[in-house]
Structure formats: structure tokens, C-alpha cells
């Protein structure tokens, strides 16, 4: 029991960090912000689910996915389908040629609900689908890719292409999906008006609580053997394989978890924003979410949340006052985080928590190379030929 608590919340300083985050999200924000701003923060926090997932699969698993929008979108669409069906009861849609189906279907001459929409009339099924559909999709991608040892840049490009395909499909099949406009005008959840201020408050708290739960779950995964294996994998994948592990299973697992978190975020997004559209499935949002994680520190679950909030706050603030500068700043942020602060915010605030869990900062290697790049730009030959600095280089090769 003690070990379980320890693995869930970590050491005392871990607990402190978690409590601080919980206090910020559950107390400070609601007390200081009006409902409009709070709803905005709520929207940002839905992206933080994706960022937390990316910490798991990218920061620890070394798997950079440029297609997390896929899962965010799938989760969001599942929720949106349920809400749309509820908003399309035969009374409100009486003017349609086929009452009782979503308005966009009616415009597209559909005369009955497509088969895959039908189960979404059930809330229980919807909840299940929000979790299962994206996870299953991630599982399929994962099996196809990792069993074939597709990694690194290849995986990044392929996930990006999958996101592109899905976007084209959703936009093209507008009778089934609402097309480029997405699924809009969502009103009630089981009769409860989600657009009212009271609902927004409640959804905000639900959202924050779920996010904290995901962080705790993420911490449980990382603090145990899986976390160590992921670090080991990132360092020497072959060694793990030749220690008798089926490496691909661990990658699939962590990729699925990241997808699951993203999907929860997507569903909460739909609830709080009131619609879902293909623009969250595509490449650009997917890459932006990577930068949220990177700014927060790609190996810090809690940092990912702060990173997401910070970047989005910056985006809102800057795009209001200096719209032209915003892209410059965003670009500089990408470059700066990669070049100078590979550990992001969490790296700046020396991460004592992780030290406790692992005995030392777990990403010593990353920090070292990152610091090298940042601190020591002088001799290009040295960094360009870092091979020479590796201990094994002089041995030569043997067939």
C-alpha cells in the first residue's frame, strides 16, 4: 500500500508539485478568473492532456508522434456525435426533410442515420467509445509500425501522413462527418445545458480533475519498471531486446496510453467549446501540441501542463496585441526550446522530484547533449562529429 501511494504521487516533493498544480487549477484559477477566462483555461487544459501523453510517449518512450491530433479528434468526435444526436431530436429538427437526424446529414440528402452513428445514441457506449476508439486506432498504428520497427523520423512522418489522410476523409465525407465545418451547435448533455455558466464551471472542474488523474496515472506508469524500461529503450534499444523483452509491446503500450489521454482531452474539448472540427485532427495542431510538451519539459508530466498554459496564454495575449509578431515568437519558441532548453520549464526549475524517484535526474544524457549544444557552439567540428566523442568509436568494425 505504501509502495502504491509512493508510485502514484511519488516522493514528498512530487506530492508538493502535484498539490501546487491542483491548487492552481482547482482554487487559484477559478477564484481569480471570470467564467469567460476560466472557460478559456479549460480549453487550454484539454490540450494539456495531449501534452501529458506526449511526455509519456515522446519524452520517455522516444516516440515522436506528429499525429496526436488524430486521437484528440477521435475522442472529440465521439463526444460530439453523442451531443449532436441529442441536439437533433425530432422536435427541434422538425423543419428538416428527415427530422431526427443531424442537420448536416439532412442537407446532404441522408435519410437515415448512418450505421456507425446509431450506437452513439447511448451515453454509456459513447463513454466507452471515447476511450476505446482512439486507443484501438493507436494500437493498430502501433502494431503496424513498431512490430515492423518503424521509428524516429519515419514514425513522425507516417503519423503526420495519417493525420493528413484522416483530415481529408473527414472533410470529404461531409454527409457522415459534418465536413470542414465539423459538428457544431451542441447544446445539452443528457438534458443538461452545457452552454450555461454553471455547466462551464462544473466542466472546468471535471476537466482539471481528469487531467490530474491522468498525471497520477502517468506517474504510476513511469515510476515503475515500465518507466525504467522506457528510459533503457531510449538509450539502448537492442540491449532491451536482447534482455528478452518484446520492445514493440512497450512502445505500443505507451503510444496507446498517450492516445487515450489525448482522447479524454478531445472529449472534454468538445464539451467545453461546444463543437468539434477537422481542424484539430490535422498536422498543424498536432505539431503545436508537441511544442506544448517541449516547453514544459518533455520529461515532466506536470511541466507539460504549465507549458501548455504558458504557450496558449502567450498565443492569446500576443495574437491580440501583436498579431504579426506571434508567428515569429512561436517559431523562436520552437527553436529556442530545442536548442537552449531541451528540458523546458521543468529543466529550469531543477527537477528535484525526478531525482528522488530515479536516484538522479533520469535524462542525464539528454541534458548533457543539450547543454553541450547550448553552451558550446564554438567548435563546429566537435559537435558535427560527435561520433568521435563516443567511447566505442575507436574500436573499429568487424564483420
Amino acid at each position, binding site marked *: 500500500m505504501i509502495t502504491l501511494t509512493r508510485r502514484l504521487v511519488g516522493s514528498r516533493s512530487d506530492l508538493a508539485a502535484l498539490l501546487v498544480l491542483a491548487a492552481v487549477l482547482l482554487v487559484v484559477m477559478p477564484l481569480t478568473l471570470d467564467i469567460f477566462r476560466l472557460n478559456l483555461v479549460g480549453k487550454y487544459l484539454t490540450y494539456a492532456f495531449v501534452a501529458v501523453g506526449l511526455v509519456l510517449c*515522446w519524452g520517455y518512450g522516444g516516440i*515522436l508522434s*506528429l499525429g496526436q491530433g488524430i486521437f484528440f479528434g477521435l475522442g472529440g468526435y465521439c463526444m460530439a456525435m453523442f451531443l449532436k444526436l441529442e441536439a437533433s431530436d425530432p422536435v427541434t429538427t422538425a423543419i428538416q426533410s428527415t427530422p431526427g437526424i443531424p442537420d448536416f446529414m439532412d442537407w446532404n440528402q441522408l435519410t437515415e442515420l448512418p450505421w456507425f452513428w446509431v450506437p452513439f445514441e447511448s451515453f454509456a457506449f459513447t463513454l466507452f467509445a471515447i476511450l476505446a476508439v482512439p486507443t484501438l486506432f493507436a494500437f493498430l498504428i502501433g502494431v*503496424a*509500425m513498431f512490430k*515492423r*520497427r*518503424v521509428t*524516429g*523520423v*519515419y514514425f*513522425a*512522418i*507516417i503519423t*503526420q*501522413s*495519417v493525420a*493528413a*489522410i484522416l483530415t*481529408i*476523409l473527414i472533410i*470529404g465525407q461531409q454527409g457522415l462527418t459534418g465536413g470542414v465545418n465539423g459538428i457544431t451547435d451542441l447544446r445539452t448533455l443528457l438534458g443538461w445545458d452545457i452552454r450555461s455558466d454553471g455547466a462551464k464551471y462544473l466542466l472546468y472542474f471535471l476537466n482539471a480533475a481528469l487531467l490530474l488523474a491522468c498525471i497520477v496515472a502517468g506517474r504510476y506508469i513511469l515510476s515503475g519498471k515500465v518507466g525504467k524500461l522506457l528510459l533503457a529503450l531510449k538509450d539502448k534499444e537492442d540491449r532491451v531486446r536482447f534482455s528478452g523483452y518484446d520492445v514493440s509491446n512497450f512502445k505500443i503500450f505507451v503510444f496507446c496510453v498517450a492516445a487515450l489521454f489525448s482522447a479524454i482531452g478531445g472529449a472534454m474539448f468538445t464539451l467545453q467549446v461546444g463543437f468539434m472540427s477537422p481542424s484539430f485532427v490535422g*498536422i498543424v495542431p498536432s*505539431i503545436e501540441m*508537441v*511544442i506544448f510538451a*517541449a516547453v514544459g519539459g518533455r520529461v515532466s508530466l506536470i511541466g507539460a501542463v504549465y507549458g501548455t498554459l504558458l504557450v496558449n496564454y502567450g498565443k492569446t495575449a500576443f495574437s491580440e496585441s501583436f498579431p*504579426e509578431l506571434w*508567428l*515569429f515568437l*512561436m*517559431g*523562436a*519558441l*520552437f*527553436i529556442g*526550446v*530545442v*536548442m537552449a532548453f*531541451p528540458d523546458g520549464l521543468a529543466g529550469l526549475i531543477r527537477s528535484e522530484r525526478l531525482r528522488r524517484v530515479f536516484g538522479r535526474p533520469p535524462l542525464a544524457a539528454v541534458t548533457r*547533449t543539450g547543454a553541450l*549544444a*547550448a553552451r558550446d*557552439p564554438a567548435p*563546429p*567540428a566537435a*559537435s*558535427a*562529429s*560527435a*561520433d*568521435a566523442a563516443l567511447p566505442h*568509436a575507436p574500436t573499429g568494425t568487424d*564483420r
Partner: protein
Amino acid sequence: MFEGYTASEIGAIFAMQGFAGLSLFCVFLLMALGLAIIFGQMQVINMAHGEFLTIGAYSTYLMSVVAEKHAPWLMDYYFFLAIALGFVVAFAIGWLVEFSLIRFLYKRPLDTLLATWGLSLIMQQGFRSMFGAREVSPTLPEWLLGSWQLSDTIEIPINGLLVVGVTAVLTLAVFFLLFRSRWGLKVRATTQNRVMAEAAGINTARVDRNTFALGCGIAGVAGAVFTTIASTGPTSGSLYIVDTFLVVVFGGAASLFGTIASAFSIAQAQSILEFFINGSMAKVITLAIVIGILMLRPEGLFASRVRK
């Protein structure tokens, strides 16, 4: 779909469709060539590749404005100068980017991907600040715009011919540069064994920089040529990225031949599918096929089999 047509009509359509496939292949190859060199040589995926294409496009636009205003007699030929300018400008900016950014990230390919994405945002906003948010249209020489009437029914687009021609010349040039020149020898030596190359007195840092800049310069040429078939605007380059990456990844790293074959197969698949089914679905199916094949051959079509 061919009922009610004469044999010669069908023949003409097939001929033109063959050419459409060929020019799409050349477009893909032009897009991907620069990226393939960079990816093959240094395992860097340059997400700002599209913006280097845009540099070439804006160079053409600038040249056309200058020619129109100051040297109308040049209007017929300025396009070749524009191609050269596109190369020079993109090469120079590529050189700077390598010097100030890429060289610190060679050991971290995924980070390069993010950093160059940031670079692409900055470049896009740069274009917007310099040339305005709206698309511009370089005035192209009259001879480039029309088509070449081969027979009564067969018309071949001249800009298509230009794309094919430039692609052929550029590919040959790259081939000779990489496989028949001293510099190419250095490049290949560096790729294969950096330490040994350094020991042999090759300045590998300089090789890297020039290779990266060359890749960008080729993108500049491609961008200049694309003004004849596509738009010139701050985000024009980003229209190509997904296709470009897929071509390169599909071809496999470190293989010029792989890139060519990959561009060819993707272009043919897409061109034929587009002819027989709807455009959007053709795109989806093409992408899906490519991804499917990549699952079977994760290292790309033509990665050579070596001891890992």
C-alpha cells in the same frame, strides 16, 4: 468510361495522361530532391523545406517585377535568371541556417524536425511581412504559358515540358556532383564514416554545410519552376510538405535512386487513380498505399540491406 470514343481520341488521352504522370513525377522529384540529399547525408528532416521552395517562388516574382519595370526586353528570358536567383538565395539562406541552427542538432534528428518547423513559421511570417499576406503572380513570359500542339488532339503543356527539362538537368547535375566529382566523394565519405573522413583531412563541417545549402538551393530552383504551375504566397510551400516527406521517406534514406523511384511510383499511382476515381479519394488511397508499403519496408523502398 471510354465508350463512344474513337481509338485516336483514346490514344490521345492516354498520351496526354502519360505526360501528366510524367510531369507529376517530375514535380515530386523536384520537391523531394533537395530534401532527399539533406536527409540522406545528415538524417535531418527539414520541415522548412516548403519555405525554401517559396523562396524560389518569390525570387521569380521579384525578377519578374524588376524585368517588367526596368528591362522589358528581358521579359522573355528573365525566367532563367530567376531560376539562378532562386538557387543563389535559397543556397545562401540554407548556408546560414546550417551555420546557426542545424549543426548543433545533428545527433538529435527529432529535435531538428521541431526546430526546422519553428524555422518554417518564422520564414512564413517573414514572407508575409515582406511581400504581404496576399498571393502574388509573377508575370511569366508568353512562351511559357501555352501548350504545344503535337497533333489535332494531343496538346502538351509547355510549363510541363519545362518542369520535365529542369528536373532532368538538375537530377543529372546532382548525380554528377555526388558520384563523379571530388566534392561528391567527400560528401559520400562523410556520410559513410565521419571519423575516417575527418582523419583523411576532409573538413566534414564544411561538407555538411555545403550539402545542406545545396539541398536548399535545389528547393529554390524547384520553387522558381513551380511558379509556372502553382501559387506564390507566404504559405504556398506548405502545400507540398506532406507529399515531399512521403516521397523521401518512401524512397529510403541515402539513396538518390530510391527517391527517383519513389517519386515515380507515387506520381504514377496518384495520376492514374485521379484519372479513374475522384481526386480526394485518389489522394487518400495513394497515401494509404504508401503508408502500407512503408509498414512492410520500414526503411523505405530502396534502402540497401546491410549489417546494422
